[in-house]
């Protein structure tokens, strides 16, 4: 057969074409593109400032009351020392609790992880359309491998998430984001690695769920169900140690918490605890490995029915 001569026989052929198809839909529609960025930015601008705990406990609000001064008969020198102590107390509390003196920086990292969560959720839904509009069947009748069809979905969701998350980081800087003392440019790659792992895991999971439904309502319901626990039982807004016991239990196993804490070490903390970082990578990596394998196997089995 003559046509066999000019075709690629690679098992992975079509992977980039299918991935790029998804990406094109997204970057060629600027409105959608901008809208997906809007939500985390609004959260960051509103919540990041409204919940600025640093300013709540911060220096300007704390002055030593006059009766304290007269009762303790403080000298001006003592007053200055005490005032100095109080003006640092906010920062000290912030540093101790959040690992940075800037709450918005703490939250921005949480938002980066969320963007990854939301983007993987939404881009996973495209598979429902592909099934319903017949594209999936058409692809299944071509020699492109089933695994490649699924992998392209996972990959495009992952690439999209990483890109959107980077934009959040860039936008957070003018909003008051402060890099930690331990930050170097190389750490950005570490952040990408975290995002890559978590997105692979999450999108494999969502695609395995979505590929089974012909109606968009089903994945919507599943997403809503998963959304809240994944969001609030994580270290997005508060460190896990500050949570009530039951919430802490969920947050401790939530891979998003590990992703956030790991990214915080790389981006905003003043020093990096490498054994912690290794643990965080290991946990997120294991999560990604298990979910990607399970997700792809489940989807693959469905396609081979």
């Amino acid at each position, binding site marked *: 057969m003559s046509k066999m001569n000019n*075709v690629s026989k690679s098992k992975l052929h079509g992977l980039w074409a299918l991935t790029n198809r998804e990406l094109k839909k997204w970057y060629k529609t600027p409105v959608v593109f901008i809208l997906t960025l809007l939500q985390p930015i609004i959260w960051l601008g509103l919540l990041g400032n409204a919940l600025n705990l640093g300013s709540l406990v911060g220096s300007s609000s704390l002055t030593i009351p006059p009766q304290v001064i007269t009762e303790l008969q403080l000298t001006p020198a003592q007053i200055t020392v005490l005032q100095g102590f109080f003006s640092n107390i906010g920062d000290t509390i912030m540093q101790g609790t959040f690992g940075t003196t800037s709450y918005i920086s703490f939250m921005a990292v949480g938002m980066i992880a969320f963007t990854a969560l939301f983007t993987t959720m939404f881009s996973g839904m495209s598979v429902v359309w592909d099934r319903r509009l017949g594209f999936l069947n058409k692809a299944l*009748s071509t*020699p492109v491998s089933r695994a490649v069809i699924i992998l392209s979905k996972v990959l495009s969701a992952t690439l999209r998430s990483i890109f959107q998350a980077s934009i959040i980081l860039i936008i957070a800087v003018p909003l008051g984001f402060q890099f930690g003392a331990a930050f170097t440019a190389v750490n950005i790659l570490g952040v990408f690695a975290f995002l890559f792992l978590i997105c692979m895991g999450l999108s494999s999971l969502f695609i395995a769920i979505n590929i089974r439904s012909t109606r968009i309502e089903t994945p919507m319901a599943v997403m809503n169900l998963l959304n809240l626990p994944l969001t609030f039982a994580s270290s997005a807004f508060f460190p896990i140690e500050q949570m009530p016991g039951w919430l802490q239990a969920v947050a401790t196993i939530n891979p998003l918490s590990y992703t956030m804490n790991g990214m915080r070490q790389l981006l905003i903390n003043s020093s990096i605890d490498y054994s912690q970082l290794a643990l965080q990578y290991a946990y997120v990596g294991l999560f990604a490995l298990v979910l990607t394998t399970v997700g792809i196997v489940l989807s693959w089995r469905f396609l081979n029915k």
Partner: protein
Amino acid sequence: MSNNAIEAEALTKVFNGSLVAVDHIDFSVRNGEIFGFLGPNGAGKTTTINMLITVLKPTEGKASILGYDIAKQNTQVRYSIGVVPQEYTADEDLTGYENILLCADLYGIQREVSKKRASELLELVELTAFKDKKVQTYSGGMRRRLELACGLINRPKVLFLDEPTLGLDVQTRAATWNYIKMLKKEFGMTLFMTTHYLEEADALCDRIAIIDHGKIIVVGSPTELKDSLGGDIITVAIKEDVDITELVERINHVKEVKKENGSYRIKSENGEITAPLIIESLRKEGHVVTRLSLTKPTLNEVYLQYTGKSMRDAEESGDSLYAKRMIMARRRH
């Protein structure tokens, strides 16, 4: 390899353990012929195609395409076939050209080759002027043509067309018929198509299988099927008031003559040949023919005979189904 492009043996698909969509069907499609699957909604046409194009696994039975087993040699099958699905599957957000190249990539066709072929195919289906427009802006007919181009990108030996003219207007339907005939004639392609439309099956197909409730009811060429109903009907009236039944019965090809209130209903194969013979014989005997009409049985009657349903019902529900599908597709935006 036998000279059959497609062979199916006891091919069966059961959904969810109980719904028998395709029920032990046997058929073969010869190399280079246009084979039509004709049946009402839910008959199992699409399910049969989906098994043959390796999208669905048969529950039972087997089939082969160009000698390749659809279960065991599915890669070879996929390289040899092209598919024009029932739905519009082209990506609305991409241009026509991008869509064709995407199809080419799914076959792993190298870019230099696929670009050239894409241009040729766009020319063939007369979409060159619109190739850089998003598919969103295409009309239904243009989308069908684009699907056709996508289905041809790998130069398939066997092309599957699932209701290729569903929802098209009369001109576009005629144009699509011409493409289909051309593919057979110019490229010697084997075509397997499904349709609701009897006149379509009649005009295009070398052979037809009528399928209903997952079973093949009858297979044959349109002519054979129509002849199985007893041939054409010639109605004759003469001026004189005499019985000509015996005279007509002696004429070649005539099968049956019935006198019906003043005229004669004559069943015959090849009516257009028989009719002049009848006129001639009657004249020789000194009779004057006052009226003669020739009715060819349509597949409509065949369909009615074999399924007990009028095809018109099926056609109507086909159109409303199409409308539903379009609404569904639009809701996406």
